[in-house]
């Protein structure tokens, strides 16, 4: 794995390898001394053009547990808002000697540019680019689902996942659809028609605009709730928060009819009372806190596979 830019870049075998290594990483985190020497002497730069405390902390923890040197670079404002250009930042990081760059950026494709424009040789890990993708989120979600539903091994063949929320603006949805499809799961996206992208029909999943219908049509093994930003109301994507919650909000009542083993995921941060109710978020099906812990293990696995295989300069 040279870079990780899109969840679609991973073959089923590669994805399973990441999940398997993540399981090993998770096993170490229970130890008294949970630091591994794998990336000693390697430099990982966290390049964050967007505020995201939880993702940044997760990557920092992952890199540090692998003994890498971690530099966090919070570039306030991108060239979109007249800051330093992506190119100049990349050249700076190249001069510093970064081995891997973990990049979070508000513009779709920023990680692609960083990896392919020829400015820097480092491995590039997409930690969320605009409304495009967030591949490590999909990997940690798959890891969580595999533990909950598939005994923690192999793929997710036949697992049925409903993803509900603002698909149009969600990088989590895009990465999850691609990765879950690769791993053999069946995905149904649910959203109001205004929050589904034109062209979603070409994605490897089913699409519905009726949450209750999607939850009752057949057995559902997992429900993944996407964050909905309240600003979307101003742009006429939906009329009001109340109406959104009534039609697309996930609560305990809606989860009642699901099979016993079915689980609930949310990438965070949650808007309790909007896309997810407290009784659902805190209920027995919820794996939301576990997702956060799994995020560190999964990111350790990705960094390890990207860097430990290559030569140390």
């Amino acid at each position: 794995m040279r870079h990780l830019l899109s969840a679609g870049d991973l073959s089923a075998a590669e994805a399973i390898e990441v999940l398997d290594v993540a399981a090993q990483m998770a096993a170490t985190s229970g130890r008294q001394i949970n630091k591994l020497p794998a990336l000693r002497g390697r430099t990982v730069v966290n390049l964050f053009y967007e505020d995201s405390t939880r993702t940044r902390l997760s990557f920092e923890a992952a890199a540090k547990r692998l003994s890498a040197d971690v530099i966090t670079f919070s570039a306030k404002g991108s060239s979109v808002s007249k800051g330093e250009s992506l190119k100049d930042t990349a050249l700076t990081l190249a001069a510093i000697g970064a081995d891997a760059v973990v990049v979070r950026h508000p513009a779709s494709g920023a990680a692609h540019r960083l990896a392919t424009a020829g400015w820097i040789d480092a491995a590039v890990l997409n930690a969320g680019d605009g409304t495009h993708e967030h591949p490590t989120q999909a990997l940690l979600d798959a890891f969580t689902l595999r533990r909950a539903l598939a005994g923690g091994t192999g793929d997710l063949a036949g697992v049925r996942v409903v993803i509900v929320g603002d698909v149009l603006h969600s990088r989590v949805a895009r990465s999850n659809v691609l990765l879950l499809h690769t791993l053999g799961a069946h995905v149904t996206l649910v959203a109001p028609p205004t929050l589904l992208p034109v062209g979603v029909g070409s994605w490897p999943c089913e699409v519905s605009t009726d949450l209750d219908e999607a939850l009752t049509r057949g057995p559902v093994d997992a429900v993944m709730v996407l964050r909905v930003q309240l600003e979307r109301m101003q742009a006429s994507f939906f009329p009001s928060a109340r109406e959104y919650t009534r039609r697309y909000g996930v609560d305990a009542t809606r989860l009642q009819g699901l099979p016993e083993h079915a689980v609930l995921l949310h990438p965070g941060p949650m808007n309790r009372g909007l896309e997810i109710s407290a009784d659902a978020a805190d209920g027995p099906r919820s794996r939301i806190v576990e997702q956060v812990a799994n995020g560190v293990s999964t990111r350790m696995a990705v960094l390890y596979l990207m860097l430990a295989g290559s030569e140390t300069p």
Partner: protein
Amino acid sequence: MTALVIHDVAPLGGERVDLVVIDAVIDALLPAHGADAAVLEGLRRNHGEVARVDGAGLIALPGLVDLHTHLREPGREDAETVLTGSRAAARGGFTAVHAMANTAPVADTAGVVEQVWRLGREAGWTEVRPVGAVTLGLEGKQLAELGAMADSAAGVRVFSDDGHCVDDALVMRRALEYVRAFDGVIAQHAQEPRLTDGAQMHEGTVSSVLGLRGWPAVAEEAIIARDMLLADHVGSRLHVCHVSTAGSVELIRWGRSRGVAVTAEVTPHHLVLDHERARGYDPLFKVNPPLRTADDVAALRAGVADGTIDIVATDHAPHPPEAKEGEWAGAAMGMTGLETALSVAIHALVEPGHLDWAGLARVMSTAPAAIGRVAGQGEPLAAGSTANLVLLDPAARAVVDPAQHASRGRNTPFAGMELPGAVVATVLRGHPVVLGGRLATPRPAGPEQGSGSGSAPGASAR
């Protein structure tokens, strides 16, 4: 008095002739090898030195006329100047270009259009025809002094807020009506602004995967439909810039059948490239209107072939490197086109059999000259016509190398592509500005150039 003889050249790819030019006018078309020693001696006696060009294997077309060029001066001389853009035009075979109004300051006064016109005249590489803004500051609110620009030395006949749509229906109606007084035309950049707020690329399967905000086809088509109905209602002519969708072609075909005085252009890039190019997020492929689908590309070619689309216009949009190398959303829209247009048009229209050489001359010279009411351009290759010519080698094939371009802009999406046809010579009013595929000398600005009258005799554009 100067004389120029082009030996053994094929006008419009037809029978070969020797073409004799005296001063700025085609004097005679002699049978091939007809300009023999005796004829040359006669010319020498009357006109002194005789310049000679070997046209063997070459095709002569009337000099190309671009109805849609961004020369960036005044204001963005880092991207292009009238001089560098004029040199690029000459290299591309263009003997006239229409300089768009979205400069800084905006070309919305007689002063700015005259300045651009004068810079073009001083440069001497091509005829620069300024386009006037429709509204003050391109803001779409208040009409600019269209009459003053029309009456200025620049003789403006084409008005456009290009880059912005004249989206207010009432302002558009008034503009269409007003320019009738001086036989002007409104060239509309058809883009419904609310439907395209923050739009990054064609809205469809690729935008959905890339997570880039979509620019839906309907945002173009809705404005074209409205404008054709408006033009019909007030009896004015309308020109549609850079048509990019199959639906637009269908609408314009419908407008024509109703007798609406609408003309339309397509860019070379929309005839070849589609939205799949965006997959690598390389901003070289970011353009407005965006690259559409392969079906749209096919419909645009068919539209040119059946005459629904009147002309090919470059929308040459040079940018400095930093505007095109960051992340997609932050990058500028636009592509250069002057030095690749002819080759791309041959590739997209002539080679597949949509147009013959006469058809190519129509869509890249005669028709744009007629729409822009440009006197002395796009005339038939016949005795008495103004000697604006391009000689091209149809057998040549070359890989596009932006470093070799005369334009200051390096942002061509065709870099690395092998394309057919090469401009060997460009003759601007009898003066060879390009020879052997290289820039020669500019045409000295004489008092006779650029009358500014703006009225083409027998202009027959719809």
